[in-house]
């Protein structure tokens, strides 16, 4: 298992390098000019200097390597500095200053480090998207278990239908639909997610809850559809196994048979699917964040794209890719750990 993990970790390095190269070349080949917005009255030599100030004067490969160094070497150093300076966890260590005087990945829009902005935006995304994912899983698991246990019952048929709808109705339709019904028609929830809202007491907590319900519902519908399907088919695979008959023959209670024996074995593939779905939910949240005006990571990517802020776009896209690679790895390792029948070596 350990050798497998190490091998996979080593293999993910060229994968990540390749992905970063693809993203870099894509942005490079694109025929947009970051100087396009500069007025025509600016003389060409000044323009050239501005270009160089943005780091555009260098040839292609040097810029790519510089970005790599900034992302993989300087940013972790900044992180270590922050750890030893400002956190209680490692704050007792002497303050380090690895990153002093080194250039970080700078956003062209705000002229501040990209990672700082990303870190500002991550809580909003995690709070809405992450909670939606958890809620979706919590709804999906019981549905999947029960519809497998009572296969072809009315509940199962209804569950299948709802799942099909969850697969088919895109979030950019459910979002506006919910807004029309609950925000405009009934007036229960606000139509826009206010990220500046601070939870201080019970009343403000209620407002926070109200504004979170709709985006969470939209995202949770997608998650529920996928995971309840997986849970159901995985339960069905296990319910006909010999060990289930043995457990029943021993005289175990039905609840113990289903909820302990079958469920634990059925959860193995479901856990990996849950792990695999985490990065895609970040990408898919772009639409939901746009509908409910949540200023999270997805919205950051969109605004950066429209503003032609290439360092920001590149870093964000690469972070999404990094998440996918990392969670693929986690899913594979989890599968091996949970299921003793799987041996990778």
């Amino acid at each position, binding site marked *: 298992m350990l050798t497998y993990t190490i091998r996979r970790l080593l293999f993910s390095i060229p994968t990540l390098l390749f992905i970063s190269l693809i993203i870099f070349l894509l942005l490079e080949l694109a025929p947009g000019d970051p100087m396009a917005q500069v007025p025509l009255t600016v003389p060409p030599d000044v323009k050239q200097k501005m270009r160089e100030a943005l780091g555009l004067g260098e040839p292609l490969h040097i810029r790519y390597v510089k970005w790599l160094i900034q992302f993989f070497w300087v940013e972790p150093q900044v992180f270590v500095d922050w750890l030893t300076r400002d956190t209680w966890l490692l704050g007792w260590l002497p303050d380090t200053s690895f990153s002093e005087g080194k250039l970080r990945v700078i956003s062209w829009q705000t002229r501040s480090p990209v990672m700082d902005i990303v870190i500002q935006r991550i809580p909003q995304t995690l709070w809405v998207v992450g909670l939606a994912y958890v809620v979706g899983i919590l709804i999906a698991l019981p549905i999947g278990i029960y519809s497998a246990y009572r296969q072809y019952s009315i509940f199962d048929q209804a569950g299948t239908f709802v799942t099909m709808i969850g697969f088919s109705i895109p979030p950019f339709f459910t979002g506006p639909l919910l807004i029309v019904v609950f925000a405009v028609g009934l007036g229960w929830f606000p139509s826009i997610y206010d990220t500046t809202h601070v939870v201080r007491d019970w009343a403000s907590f209620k407002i926070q809850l109200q504004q979170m319900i709709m985006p969470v519902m939209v995202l949770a519908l997608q998650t529920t559809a996928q995971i309840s399907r997986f849970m159901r088919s995985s339960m069905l695979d296990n319910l006909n196994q010999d060990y289930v008959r043995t457990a029943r023959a021993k005289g175990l209670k039905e609840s113990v048979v289903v909820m302990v024996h079958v469920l634990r074995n059925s959860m193995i593939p479901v856990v990996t699917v849950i792990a695999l779905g985490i990065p895609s939910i970040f*990408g898919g949240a772009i639409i939901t964040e746009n509908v409910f005006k949540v200023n999270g990571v997805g919205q950051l990517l969109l605004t950066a794209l429209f503003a032609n802020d290439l360092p920001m776009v590149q870093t964000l896209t690469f972070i999404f890719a990094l998440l996918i690679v990392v969670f693929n790895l986690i899913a594979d390792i989890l599968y091996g750990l949970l299921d003793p029948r799987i041996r990778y070596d």
Partner: protein
Amino acid sequence: MTEQTATPKSFEPVPTAPPRSQWADVWRQFRRHKGALFGGGFLVFITLAVLVGPYLWTVDPQKLNIRFKDIRPIYTALWDGDAKVNWAHPLGSDNLGRDILANLLSGGRASMAVGWAAMLISVVIGTVIGVVAGFFKRLDGLFMRFTDLVLSLPILPLLLVAVTLFRQPLRKNFGPETGMFILIVAIIGITSWMQTARIVRGEVLALKEREFILAARSIGTKPFKIITRHLLPNVLSPIMVSATLGLATAIITESALSFLGVGFPSDFPTWGKLLSDAVPRMEEFPERVVLPGLMISLTVLSVNYIGDGLRDALDPRIRGR
């Protein structure tokens, strides 16, 4: 058993029904899946509507008519007597007086065209890569590693990046509509072939070891002929299933891009574009959001159901029962 061997030859049952072809069997099984049948019916209906509809409902979707702007659909008159309705615009008109029914029809045309074209591209790429990787052992590792790599790319962000960045030159070269169409179809097609490739490769790997391939090889059939004559017909069913899923994904992806504002221009609307254009005024005119949204959802739902039914119908283990 002994009884059977003792039976005289003349009693051997003569098949009364004419032999059924494989596709007749598939169709029989497909018909038993109610959802798939409804889905198929709806898809045929929608396809016919967007193909023939513009000839029957000959209102120009781009015609501005400021006197007849913001007309509500005719059915709002049922509960709201004061609503501004007009039989000339059965589904109402938008804030510039463009007819919504005509827009829905022409938008459906664009959406379906994008969906089908992108799906065809992705299925062709996926099949080629899958068959080559499964059939030629030397290329297998390389191709599958490549597939894994592409699978770990963040698709939606990359789509957004590609569309925003390459929009201008393609528009310049091919005109705003054709350029956008080529760009979106190509990009969706290029980024969604991976699942097909994986499934096809798995099937080909299993088929390759079967006797009929060995027989074909032993009479000197060239690899290309083996692929086209013997392998492709046998992997048709998984390809068809993943093609239906691909069609659904392509329609949704195109609408999502249009919704985020990087898709088709407003004067060449697709369903997604109609929906996103209507969102700012959805408090007063919810139907403008609901109608295109319903079209997208119903089309995708029916395609998904067809895929479900096809999967059952094409699986010989299920079909016999």
